[in-house]
């Protein structure tokens, strides 16, 4: 099922995971995306479980996309950036709606990147792009590999550039993704997925 890295493929959604250093990295990625962007973006950014999140508010100012915290059973729409709510896993259902759960944390994390990526791979198969950015734990590596095994497009931030390279390196230890790129190039790649 795996396509060669450069073959054109049809992508329906982008899933992004990051923890420490992620806010800055995400800003770079989404600042160039405009309101008319065709694809939905689903984001797990590790945050402390309690306390209000203003992630959606903060990012609404940085991008032309519609930005919101994911609601459960919400249909997924293009041109929208969904953040996992703090304290909940974010999952994609087979009918491509979003769901939330309070199952046990994975890698001490809830939301967990693995949970999002694995369910996205199940729902979209080869039509999902997974992007793993800077972070200080190993969450996301197994999930990105699941996307890879489903034939999806996999992108890891260049560890040399990542603020904390644990997360990108954990993925690179498991498998060889389609792309290992600095943020600026990842941003270009995402725009080209249109």
């Amino acid at each position: 099922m795996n396509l060669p890295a450069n073959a054109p493929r049809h992508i329906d959604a982008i899933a992004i995971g990051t923890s420490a250093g992620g806010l800055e990295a995400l800003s770079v990625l989404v600042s160039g995306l405009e309101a008319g962007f065709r694809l939905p973006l689903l984001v797990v950014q590790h945050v402390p479980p309690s306390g209000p999140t203003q992630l959606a508010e903060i990012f609404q100012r940085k991008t032309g996309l519609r930005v919101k915290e994911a609601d459960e059973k919400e249909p997924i729409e293009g041109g929208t950036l969904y953040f996992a709510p703090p304290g909940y896993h974010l999952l994609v259902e087979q009918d491509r709606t979003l769901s939330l759960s309070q199952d046990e944390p994975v890698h001490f994390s809830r939301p967990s990147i693995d949970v999002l990526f694995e369910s996205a791979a199940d729902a979209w198969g080869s039509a999902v792009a997974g992007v793993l950015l800077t972070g200080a734990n190993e969450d996301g590596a197994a999930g990105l590999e699941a996307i890879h095994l489903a034939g999806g497009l996999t992108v890891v931030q260049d560890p040399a550039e990542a603020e904390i390279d644990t997360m990108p390196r954990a993925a690179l230890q498991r498998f060889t993704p389609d792309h290992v790129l600095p943020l600026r190039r990842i941003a270009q790649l995402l725009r080209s997925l249109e």
Partner: protein
Amino acid sequence: MAVSPVEVELKLLVEAIYHRYSYDFRDYSGASLKRRVLLSLRHIGCESVGALQRRILDDPQAFMELLQYLTIPVTEMFRDPGYYRALREHVVPVLRTYPSLKIWVAGCSTGEEVYSLAILLHEEGLLERSMLYATDINPRSLERAREGIFDMRHVRAYTLNYQQAGGTASFADYYTAAYDSVLLDRSLRSRVTFADHSLATDSVFSETHLISCRNVLIYFNKGLQNRALGLFHESLCRRGFLGLGSKETVEFSASAERFEPFVKPERIFRKL
């Protein structure tokens, strides 16, 4: 897109559970159900979902183990303190006007939620006139809930929650410590009836003034959510209250027109 073999196995598994044990997981959200089934495989000692299905058909004990994964018995006392504060400030004044109160905690897990409500009602002088029904489908959780014994490790977090929830006494007044556990005060338990009841297959059993059903509906698909909300509507008295979990709502459901938001940020609704 073709359905993958493991999705088929999952469908067959929940059918098998339904026909063999009458537990109905057929309308639960698929993605997290799948995760939990896969997590259970190693613990139960099965290689595949297919093997698990075979196993649970013959072995009720193995099914009971699987049920522990399927039901997510995760809870806390005074979880989301703002919810309890809102109940105290906005719902209790109305409850006070009734001579007797019936309260239903649906999906009570190991009891933390219903005991939190009992403490709140006690502090508001309403516990003596209240009957609390606490229901769940997991018999092990219900058994632990009846005992009212909690792990000492959680007490610090619960005490903090209690204070943030507007507790008017000291949380330590409500338990006695024994080794590494704490035993909740008997008087709190005396007003609570625990019972087996499924929002997926059972019907309404009593009229109620307040229903608290938190972090249960997120595990249901839209159809099953509608069923549960229908039960709540039927059970609640005129202008009764419904409290949901912090990411749950009646808006966008088939019952949306039959409830109004009462304390919206805390997901407290009122029957119209």
